[in-house]
Structure formats: structure tokens, C-alpha cells
């Protein structure tokens, strides 16, 4: 008997459900696609392995423990030709992270400055920025990297170095800087600075509550300055300056001592920063222009200064527009850093390529590349999405 007002439903456990119910059909097709994709990958993997076996090659990651036998010039952790392939990859990964984070920092700074300046009423300034943006955006990045590298290696030889402040030496082997040597008592200064920062954060929270409760304010910036800068500086002199500097010395072939920023790193850093900076400046400009002029007029009529209007009214609203495309630029910059291979900066791709060549494990190396770049990108995205959520307008 059919009860009026209630349709007869096929049970999910009946086969009919997957054909006659709309949801069931959808489910069936999705499962078929999922099955197809999974079996495709399963087939490709199995087939590759089988063909590798036939060619007498073995797959697997155990080769990463083998000795590398080659040297790496640019490295953040110790590495010698007796270290393993695995360690070489870590060196490459750190180099990729180094140039990416340096690039992201300077590109952001440059992009924001350029974006704001482009909107300036100063004709010369805004046009100059316009030229910079159009030129760097429209020339392929690879050419720019090679251009900067060629420029830097065309600098004078080390004996005729361009010297700044008598300790920095710029030549065709890079920028040689003095290296700090920390004595053990420097640890106390670090501890003092860290506790100063924590204290300032606590004070800030307390001040916010105080202001909400009683309307009184407390000079947080001043006390923060005292804790983070003044006190550690006093301690620095009290402990008789626990940092000494290792200065570069001229030897037969090059400077020895201090540390060197290679022309490869410098070229890549400059090229990535200026290239991505141009894109970021356009994003910033669009963000600022997206805030309606009425907001500015309202702020001005409330008596806020130009500076305050920018800082308190325009920027917080512009950020909502800026952050999502900014994330893409950060991801692009990280991936573009793999162009390092053109000038011999030893990033993950460059070192992976060398390992691939010396060991013959192409599939594994390519898999590692993919996983690493995916992880870096997802990590960046997650962070930026979190930040985006934090600054988005709270709707009431």
C-alpha cells in the first residue's frame, strides 16, 4: 500500500538504487570514475616497474643512502663528497627554501612600495614605477635571471673588488661579507630579546583589555622598545661585546674567511624579487583602488590624517583583495626558483638532476621533486589562507 504524500524510495542496499535514484546514479558514476582513475595509476605504476625490471633497473629509494662523490658549493649545512645522495637533496631543498624566502620577503617589500608609489600624484614617480612594472612583467624571467648573472659576473675581479665600509667586497665571485662569531655569553642576550618579545605581546593584550575597560592607554611601543632593544644593548656592552667578526682576507685566488653570497644566488634573488615585485605592485594597486573613495572622504572628514587614513582605513580593506592573488605570486616565485638551473645555482632541481645522472634513478628523483614542490606550495597556501581568514571582514 502506498501511503499518500510519501514516495516509495529504493533502499540504498538494493541494486536498483544505483540506477533509478538520482543520488544513487550520481554516486555510481563517481565511483566508476574513481575506480577508473585508481586503476589507471595502478596500471601505470605496475607497468613502469615491470619494464624497469626488464631493463635491469631497480626502483626504490634505497639509493639515497649511497655516497654522492660530488661536491656542492652553495650549502647551508655541511656537505662533502663522502656524504649521501639523500643529504645532497636536503642541501638542495634548503637552497630552494633560502632563495624562495629571500625572494618572497624582498618581492613583497618592493611590490608594496611600488604599488603605493604608482598611485602617487608625483608624475615622475608614478611613471618611473610604471616603466619598471611594464618592463619586468613583459620580459621572460629566464632572460632576466641570465641578464643579472651576466651583469654580476662582469664585475671586477676579486683583486679590484668594489669595497663597501672596508669589509664588504663585491666582485665577480659574489659578495664577500664578514662572518659573525658568537661567543657563548651571547646566548643570554638572545634569551633577553625573546623574553622581551613575549612580554611585549602580553602587555599588548593587557593594554587592549585595559582600553576596553577604562579607556586608559599604556605606552606599549615604548616599553617594548625598552625590553627588546635597549636592555639587550646594555647587556651586550656589559658582557664586553660577545660577538667578533671574521673578516675576509685576500689570498691567491679569492677572499678567504667571512662568508660569500655567490653571484648565482644574488642574480636569482634579484631577478625573482624584481619580477614578482612587479606583479605584486599591480595587485596592491588594484587592492587600494578597490576601496571606494567615499571611505577616504569619510576618514578625512573625521579628522584622520593622510597617513592614518592609509594605515587604518584603506589598507585593512585593500588586504582582502590583495591576499588571494598574492598567494599565487608566492607560489609562482617558489616554483620559478627552479630556473636556477640555468645559471648553476644549486637548488633542489639542479642537485636532483645531478643525482639522477649519477645514479640513474630518474623516476624516484622526479617523484621527490613533485612531492617537495607540492608540499612547499600547499604549506604556503595553508598559511596564506589562514591569514586571509584572519584579516577578512567580520560580518555582523
Amino acid at each position: 500500500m502506498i501511503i499518500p504524500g510519501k514516495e516509495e524510495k529504493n533502499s540504498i542496499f538494493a541494486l536498483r538504487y544505483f540506477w533509478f535514484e538520482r543520488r544513487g546514479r550520481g554516486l555510481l558514476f563517481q565511483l566508476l570514475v574513481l575506480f577508473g582513475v585508481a586503476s589507471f595509476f595502478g596500471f601505470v605504476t605496475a607497468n613502469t616497474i615491470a619494464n624497469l625490471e626488464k631493463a635491469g633497473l631497480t626502483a626504490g629509494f634505497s639509493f639515497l643512502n649511497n655516497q654522492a662523490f660530488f661536491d656542492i658549493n652553495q650549502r647551508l649545512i655541511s656537505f662533502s663528497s663522502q656524504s649521501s645522495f639523500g643529504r645532497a637533496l636536503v642541501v638542495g631543498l634548503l637552497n630552494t627554501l633560502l632563495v624562495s624566502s629571500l625572494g618572497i620577503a624582498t618581492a613583497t617589500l618592493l611590490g608594496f612600495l611600488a604599488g603605493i608609489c604608482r598611485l602617487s600624484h608625483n608624475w615622475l614617480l608614478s611613471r618611473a614605477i610604471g616603466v619598471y612594472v611594464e618592463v619586468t612583467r613583459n620580459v621572460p624571467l629566464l632572460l632576466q635571471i641570465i641578464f643579472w648573472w651576466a651583469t654580476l659576473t662582469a664585475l671586477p675581479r676579486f683583486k679590484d673588488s668594489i669595497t663597501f665600509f672596508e669589509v664588504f667586497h663585491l666582485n665577480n665571485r659574489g659578495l664577500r661579507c664578514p662572518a659573525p662569531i658568537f661567543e657563548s655569553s651571547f646566548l643570554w642576550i638572545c634569551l633577553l630579546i625573546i623574553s622581551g618579545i613575549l612580554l611585549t605581546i602580553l602587555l599588548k593584550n593587557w593594554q587592549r583589555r585595559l582600553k576596553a575597560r577604562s579607556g586608559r592607554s599604556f605606552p606599549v611601543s615604548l616599553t617594548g622598545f625598552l625590553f627588546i632593544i635597549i636592555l639587550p644593548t646594555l647587556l651586550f656592552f656589559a658582557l664586553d661585546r660577545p660577538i667578533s667578526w671574521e673578516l675576509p682576507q685576500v689570498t691567491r685566488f679569492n677572499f678567504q674567511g667571512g662568508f660569500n653570497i655567490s653571484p648565482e644566488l644574488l642574480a636569482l634573488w634579484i631577478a625573482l624579487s624584481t619580477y614578482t615585485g612587479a606583479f605584486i605592485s599591480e595587485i596592491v594597486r588594484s587592492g587600494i583602488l578597490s576601496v571606494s573613495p567615499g571611505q577616504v572622504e569619510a576618514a578625512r572628514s573625521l579628522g584622520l590624517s593622510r597617513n592614518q587614513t592609509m594605515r587604518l582605513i584603506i589598507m585593512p580593506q585593500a588586504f582582502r583583495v590583495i591576499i588571494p592573488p598574492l598567494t599565487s605570486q608566492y607560489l609562482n616565485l617558489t616554483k620559478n626558483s627552479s630556473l636556477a638551473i640555468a645559471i648553476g645555482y644549486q637548488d633542489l632541481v639542479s642537485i636532483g638532476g645531478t643525482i639522477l645522472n649519477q645514479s640513474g634513478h630518474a623516476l624516484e628523483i622526479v617523484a621527490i621533486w613533485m612531492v617537495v614542490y607540492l608540499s612547499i606550495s600547499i604549506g604556503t597556501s595553508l598559511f596564506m589562507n589562514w591569514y586571509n581568514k584572519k584579516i577578512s571582514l567580520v560580518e555582523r
Partner: protein
Amino acid sequence: MIKGLILGILGTAAIAFFLVGSGYLDKKEVPQSKSVKIETGTPNTLQAVKKRGVLQCGINTGLAGFAYTNDKGNWAGFDVAYCRALAAAVLGDPNKVKYVNLTGKNRFPALASGEIDILSRNTTWTFSRDVKLGFTFIGVSYYDGQGFIGRKKLGVKSAKQLDGASVCIQTGTTTELNLADFFRVNKIKYEPVPIETNEEARKAYLSERCDVYTTDASGLAATKSTFSDAENHMVFPEIISKEPLGPLVRQGDDAWADIARWTLNTLINAEEYGVTQANVESLSQGTKNPEINRMLGSEGTLGQMLGLEKNWAVNAIKAEGNYAEIFEKYLGQKTPLGLSRGLNALWKDGGVLYAPPMR
């Protein structure tokens, strides 16, 4: 709720299926029937080349004397000459070659994947390349060793005085490994500057990014020959490694490896027997020397044994001449490289070139 549950279960099943597929990673034996033969794994290279009508030969991206474009815009050089001889032996025409330019880094993947039939790109024969990478070296066409080139004004007389120097190297080569060994054994420090191709390394060295450039001695001579101020540079006396250079093929197709090996041997034997590009045609009509007759096909069935035409060796020699002719044409004293035969002279002339008999 129930739908989610079922989706979850089936999804897990799908992932499990995928994992089973990749589970082959751990298995030692894979049933042959499961594998699908891809074109790249073609075991019969000879047939593939004949069918295609063109030999795919991997050569350098540019190295004076070994692989360069001549004034007619065609590839020429010591390594290229071997490609031409092989194409002539197999297809009867030395021009039926498609050249694929490869860097030190991508040459092995290109050979392994079947993009080329043979790699003739001054490649050093080493244990791990022969055994681990799955290639077969078919012989040595040039006995070389690694050296250094530097400016005379450095005042350095020996590579052992290079403590703290910047050294340009090509990545993915044996020279990169030898260099690390050399500096480690001699306990001196250096800054390796890795570069992709010989041309870029040359530029980096000339811009003084590096104090010295290291590669095979023949490569140094080739590179030096292109400097406008060659007299200001010197090759250091040390040769820090053995670098037997030769062509190589994929492992697993012995018939094809035999053809490649005996084409090279034919060029060397031709020098020994006095067979040249000019006289090969007339000698192939028959001579008093049975060795020559067997090689050139007027006696015996050597060509047939390889699965080639009777006059395969005649064609190979006609392409660019015998070993001596090729050497003198591209590397010898009359060329800008000015290399002497040295180790690469015939065994009876004090070198180490010694090809097995054609019998």
C-alpha cells in the same frame, strides 16, 4: 550518512587497489605477462632503424672537433663521423642520420628512453654506467684523461697549487666526480661552479667567474682552440683520471651492440690494413689479403652474420674514411685542436688501439 559511509568504504577500496598496484615496488619478481611492451623498450633496434630509414644519434650540444656545425650548416666532427659510418653500414647512406643534441645531464635519459639509437657523445666508460645504468659500451673511440686549463698570469704550475680556487665543471659528468676525488686526496679546498654545457662553461671561464676549467684533455684543447687569446692560457701538466670515451647503446639488444661495436672495430682495422676512403672501393673487388677480403665482403659472410648487407664495411669506411683519416680530419695536427695521436695510435705504433680480428 549512509551514503558517506559507503563512499568512504569504496574510496578506501580504490586507494587500496592503487596501493596494490604500487605494491610492485617491493616485489622482486614481476610476471612478464603483466608488463606491456612499450615502443621505447624495443629489443630489435636494427629492425626499428631500418623501418624508420634514419639512425637517431645522440651527440654533443657543441664541442669543437667532436661535434660542431661546419660552414655548410651540417653537423661534423669526430663523434659525428662515427654516427655517419654506422648509418652507412646499416642503411647504406651516411646522411641518413638524425642528430639529437644532448647535454651531459640529459644524454642518459635520452638513450634509456629510446629517443636515440646510439649515444656518440664523448662519454666515459665507467663501471657504474655500464653495470648500473643499464647501458652497453661498445668500445673506446678515444683514450682521454681529465686536465685543467687556467690563465698563465695566475702563476700556477700545477693543479695541486689550486687551493681555494674556483673551478668550472660540467654537471653530470665523470669530471665532476674526479674533481671531488682529486681535491679530497690532495686535501685542498676549492669552489666548484657547476655549469650545464661546454659553451656556457667556456663563457664562465672567460668572464673569470672561475680560475680554472676542468674537463677531458681533448675537450680542453677543443675549447682552447676557440679562445681569441689562446696564448694567455695553459693546460696544466696533470692528467687526473682515465677517461676512455666511446659510443654506447642500451643494454639488452646484443645484436645491435654487435653492429655498433664492429663498425668501430672496422674503422680501426681499416687503418691497420691500409684501407682508406679513397681505395676502399677498388680493394672491395678482392685483394691478396684475406683479412681485407673478409672485412670488405669479397670473401666470407661477415655482413650476413650481423644482419647487414655484404658491403656494410665498405659503406662505413667510405663515409668518412678509416680511424686515422677521421682523427686527422677533426682532431689532428692540421686542425685548430692540434692533438697528437698519443695513446690513440695503433698498438703497433705505440698506442693502445687494438681491434679484434675480422674473422
